[in-house]
């Protein structure tokens, strides 16, 4: 699955790697559970009471539908690239962002996976620098890829370690 081309944030000569498409069902499932399910449940009082009570399920279900449609686009927009000295991450459909994190600035790496993500064998890798501003997380990497990236980042961070 190629990442969606994104002319504004494409840097010349950078080969973007997509993340695992399995993140799409993971995110969709959690949206279905936390938004869709309450939407369905609130239909019952709406049926009983009528009229005005329909607003709640309508809003919830509309939001669910919109997110279910949006998530594949969002996930496809996420890409990363390992350059010689920096890790590049880009994301976003409406609000796009691109982060460049030098390996030498890395303080530590997190690999995290929720229960649904674990079932789907994906994990998120997050790089932490001394700055709170650098939001360098890559969600939805296959477990092997996450482990490889974690080790790679650690090794490269060590090789290029810089002071603060």
């Amino acid at each position: 699955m190629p990442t969606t081309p994104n002319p504004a944030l494409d840097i010349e000569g950078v080969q973007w790697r997509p993340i695992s498409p399995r993140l799409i069902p993971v995110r969709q499932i959690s949206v279905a559970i936390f938004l869709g399910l309450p939407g369905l449940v609130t239909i019952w009082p709406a049926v009983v009471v009528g009229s005005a009570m329909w607003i709640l399920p309508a809003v919830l279900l509309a939001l669910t539908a919109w997110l279910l449609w949006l998530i594949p686009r969002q996930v496809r927009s996420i890409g990363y690239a390992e350059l010689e000295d920096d890790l590049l991450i880009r994301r976003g459909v409406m609000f796009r962002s691109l982060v460049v994190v030098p390996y030498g600035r890395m303080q530590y790496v997190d690999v995290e996976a929720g229960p649904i993500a674990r079932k789907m064998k994906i994990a998120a890798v997050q790089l932490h620098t001394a700055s709170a501003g650098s939001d360098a997380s890559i969600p939805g990497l296959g477990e092997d890829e996450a482990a490889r990236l974690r080790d790679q980042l650690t090794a490269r961070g060590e090789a290029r370690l810089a002071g603060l």
Partner: protein
Amino acid sequence: MSADRAGESQVDWRKLHRITPLLNAWKVAAALIAIFVWQYSDTLGQLDLPTTQFLLVIIGVIVVGSLIGLGYSALAWSRTRYGLSPESVYLHSGVLFRQQRHLRLDRVQTVDVTQPLLARLFGFASLKIESAGGAGSNLTLSFLTEDEAQRLRNELLARAAGVTVSEAADGGQAPAAPAAPEREVLALTPGRLIGSLALSFWLMAFVLAGAVLIVLAVVNQSLAPIFGVGPALLGAVAYVWGRFAGEFAFRVATSPDGVRVRQGLLESKARTVPPGRVQAVQVSQPLLWRTRGWWRLQVNIAGYGAEETTGSVLYPVATTEEVGRLLYLVQPDLGDPRPLQLLEAGLSGTGGDEGFVTSPRRVRWLDWWTWRRTGFRVTDTVTILRTGRVWRRLVIVPHERTQSLGLSEGPLDRRLRVANFSLHSTPGPITPIVTHIDADVARALLVDVADRARRARRDAGPEQWMLPRTAAAAAAADGAAPDPTAAPATFGGILPSPPVRAVYGGVLPGHGAAVTDEPVEGGRMHG
């Protein structure tokens, strides 16, 4: 960590000064008394006692509170010891919950000698050593005698700088590291501090609110409005007083140990910021200061969280000429042959003077007032971000201090083909960001700054900024900078897996301005 453990055996453990419990006791006592009054104020009011007995009760509470405070402080003092090894400083403390804190000296960000009012009156001081672990990542030794605190500070800084202090052979008191020669650069007059506060937004708002309240009270013949907003007014008074007392007698000096900042009316503070610890500098000007041409200088230092306010101030009120001198202390090389003109354009200029790149004309209906002001400039050594037309702001980030870089754009930005560029710095008062830059330019900027930061990191000086400092170099370092030709003899064991530091001589330590070939001549900023 084996080296560290080896170091611990040669630590000479010392105790804090005996006076510590007395100086600390009043805090515990005050807390106890406050709690007592809070809890029993109603009961006390109902007690129908003669005045003498009532006073006796109060005195009794104070005495008991003080004794408990003293006892606890004495216990805490007896369980506290600190030590110094060639690599680290140690503090073991705690009564119920024991804490052992070891701080690596090459990670020291700043060293403060603080004297709260009481300690100051009796000639004692506390020493605070800040490391880069975020808020609360410091090691505080309180209290020591003033001389001891200064001696320890000199020793710590000398060791952190990589100067080896030869231990006495008989295991006795180590010879004191010579105090680094110091030269005063600027001192703030009380008049200007008062003037700056008078022209601050908060005081204006405060005076205005007060006037309105008095008018209201007179018109309504009641004091209710004043009582209603009393707490808010008190807060404003406390803020202004805090600024005044904290920034009173502000002095900046330079020494080979770094920039030394002294401040404080009641509680005095002497902070030393070693070279290369400043992550970003911000020069800002509230609207009302423009008539006087005053600027406020703030810095980001790793280890101070965003909530640290006084420590982040490099100078509270500076004239434009003084801004140049202060910037020279923390970033001697702006990477431009005409630094003063560059600074002038950055501080108050608009448009493309001195190589600034601004927002494109097409965003003028969005930023009708600021689009010609918002801009950036990248030099060989720093990235300069210029923003704000009403509240002018200039942010300078050395390339070797940028953590990571970011570009972002929203739907509106995309339609206008612009993007926002941010440099990620350590937490602090400064957030370097410049908005609405032409998308292509912003992308090129990102690539350019990333590349320069990479080179700057590679060429950055070691964290121990003076390796080794010979007596001659120290003497030559009387001015703003140590002798740049004092090439380090050894890098051994300083940094884990150090990259090859090809360039060190020829630049000021810690300011790895390796892109410039020639040594930075002192006084460049002064013209």
